[in-house]
């Protein structure tokens, strides 16, 4: 199912020979290939996302015959195994051994934090997928950009929607007990309470929770429950939520990784009607996505989700920047400037980059529906031009501490 590195490199070789026969429309500064490193967790608990990242990247390059901005491309994939020390070693391998020009990834916040100083020191343009807020807020690096979103960026619109259009008054949040979950719930809580709502309970489940039974039983009655979960925890929770008879009493809404496309394909009718929010949906109607989603589905038999979409968008932005520098990757500063100045139409819509390196783009409220016999996240509302600061003043925002389990303090908890 996944492509072995050897297979891929040989296919690049074959394609590049074919590519050389095509007319060179753009003058390439250097004869060597552009070397892109992909840091993906292909083994370990994050494997599902990492595998999707590689598939999307491979597909992107194959569609373009492994040529970007007129220059051959070599992709080197490194398995971080979802461990920070391994991520660092792999980053070193990519930079010191493979001499890559830029890095796409990594997937997890702690992987990104483990290598941030190293990448900054080596001045490697890094287009990350990890959602950690502070990497583009209080500790930005001139060499790091993120084309997906921060943990809370997509939660604000959903909180807004829940309060204003769904008229929810009381919501319970549940998320995994790590920074991503804390940040997402904090953002949701802030926006929801600003609109007059109340978060009456915040549950954080430990990382290795095989059974959600005791947590489901703790949920207080409210209008809805917000899932700030990642991976497959969302769907495992929903199953048990239904088994305990709670789905009839409370609505279920979720964040950007609660009901990802990769998880949805394993679910059934119980998922219908659940609202989630994300910067992407495989059902997006723009011309680029219609082609991409169909091609991905055709090749891999399932819809692209957060990780596949994230890498594809990142690759599109990289390509646009490479076109601006006319294929020059050796001048890293110029490449970085081009990336940071992006305003690119991608499969997620128009993407711009703010001064901290984070993406500004559409956020979509999606509802699970059935289409062509499969479950999809169909888009019901678009919030355009959402930045990581939502409607808050940037300077004030940055003066506050970073979102965490206890910040902003939850003042409306029912005991």
């Amino acid at each position: 199912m996944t492509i072995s590195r050897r297979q891929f490199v040989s296919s690049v070789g074959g394609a590049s020979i074919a590519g050389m026969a095509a007319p060179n429309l753009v003058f390439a500064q250097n004869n060597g290939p552009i070397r892109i490193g992909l840091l993906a967790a292909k083994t370990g608990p994050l494997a599902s996302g990492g595998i999707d990242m590689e598939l999307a990247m491979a597909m992107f390059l194959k569609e373009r015959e492994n040529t970007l901005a007129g220059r051959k491309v070599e992709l080197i994939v490194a398995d971080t195994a979802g461990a920070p020390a391994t991520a660092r070693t792999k980053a070193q391998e990519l930079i010191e051994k493979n001499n890559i020009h830029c890095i796409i990834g990594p997937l997890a916040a702690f992987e990104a934090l483990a290598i941030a100083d190293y990448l900054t020191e080596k001045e490697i343009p890094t287009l990350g997928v990890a959602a950690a807020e502070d990497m583009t807020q209080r500790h930005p690096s001139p060499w790091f950009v993120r084309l997906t979103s921060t943990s809370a960026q997509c939660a604000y619109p959903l909180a807004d929607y829940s309060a204003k259009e769904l008229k929810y008054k009381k919501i319970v949040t549940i998320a995994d007990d790590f920074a991503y979950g804390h940040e997402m719930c904090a953002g949701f809580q802030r926006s929801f309470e600003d609109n007059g709502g109340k978060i009456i309970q915040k549950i954080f489940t430990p990382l290795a929770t095989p059974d959600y039974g005791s947590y489901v039983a703790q949920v207080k009655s409210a209008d809805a429950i917000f899932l700030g979960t990642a991976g497959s925890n969302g769907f495992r929770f929903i199953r048990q939520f239904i088994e305990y008879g709670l789905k009839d009493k409370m609505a279920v809404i979720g964040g950007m990784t609660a009901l990802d496309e990769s998880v949805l394909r394993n679910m059934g009718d119980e998922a219908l009607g659940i609202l989630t929010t994300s910067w992407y949906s495989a059902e997006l109607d723009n011309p680029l996505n219609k082609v991409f989603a169909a091609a991905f589905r055709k090749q891999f038999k399932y819809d692209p989700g957060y990780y596949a979409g994230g890498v594809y968008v990142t690759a599109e932005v990289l390509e646009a920047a490479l076109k601006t520098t006319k294929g020059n990757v050796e001048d890293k500063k110029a490449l970085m400037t081009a990336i940071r100045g992006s305003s690119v139409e991608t499969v997620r819509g128009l993407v711009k980059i703010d001064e901290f390196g984070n993406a500004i783009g559409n956020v979509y409220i999606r509802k699970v529906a059935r289409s062509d016999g499969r479950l999809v996240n169909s888009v019901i509302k678009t919030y355009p031009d959402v930045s990581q600061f939502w409607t808050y003043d940037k300077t004030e925002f940055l003066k506050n501490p970073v979102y965490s389990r206890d910040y902003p303090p939850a003042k409306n908890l029912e005991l």
Partner: protein
Amino acid sequence: MVSQLSEQDRQTMQFWIIQGLNSLSLGGLLFLLSSGFSLIFGLMRLANLTHGAFFMLGTYFGAIALRSYDGLNIWVTALGAGIAVAAIGGLFERLVLTRLKTNPLGQVLVTLGMSFIISDACLLLWGGDSIPVPTPRNLQSPTRVLGFVFPTYRLVLVGCAIGAAVALYFLLERTRLGAMIRAGVDDGQMARAVGIPVSNLFTVVFCLGTGIAGAGGVLGGPILSAYPGLDADMLPLALIVVILGGIGSLLGAFIGSFVIGFIYTFGTALFPELAYIILFLPMIVVIAFRPQGLFGRVGA
């Protein structure tokens, strides 16, 4: 009667009843997981660190089988998965473990190595996504218990655990095979001396233990789902139950499973700050003061 209580009282009662039932079902699951481990360790003095992986393999078999064939019965699947896993376990025991009877460190290396192989194979064959195991259709609607709703399947799981415990008790106490196993546990050399084929017995017990794990994996599937890392999440639980309950004691494994079920469920509900510690603290306390566990024998 229930409807006459105030909302506050009702919520409290709901909490205790639901969490109590959760504890029972978690205990049942833990017994299905750890009984095999206890059996193997009791007889063979072998800490089968592959046990979590065998359990996970059962869950994956169950998930794939039940999703591919719509009308398949979960009990039949559990039996089938149990047999398949037992076969793999038996091969492993015969080809590898037999040579390591006097090499406990080698056993650690080999059982952990085997768990790497199994978990990577699962990743290769079935991908990184979580695969749900469907709950049997006739058990999907919740049961009403004293006015509260509780998933039926979880109650059934408790029944399965009790059934397995009874079956194992019967096997150990009332059959010839059981007598041989008990003899082997009590005094291996003596058992050999009276002509009990201890080496073959080891293989049989290993197959039985891993088979129970495989079947348990299928039965636990509707609650856990098959996902990469399930083996690493389950193994410490099996170890905790067996250590707490006492090595070589099936009763210990049974009681230990439910004790841990209660401690974990109520602990995480009442003291969420201690979520990570709540599993290990009781075990540390028990070993510190009673190293043989609750029901184990001294010198085991």
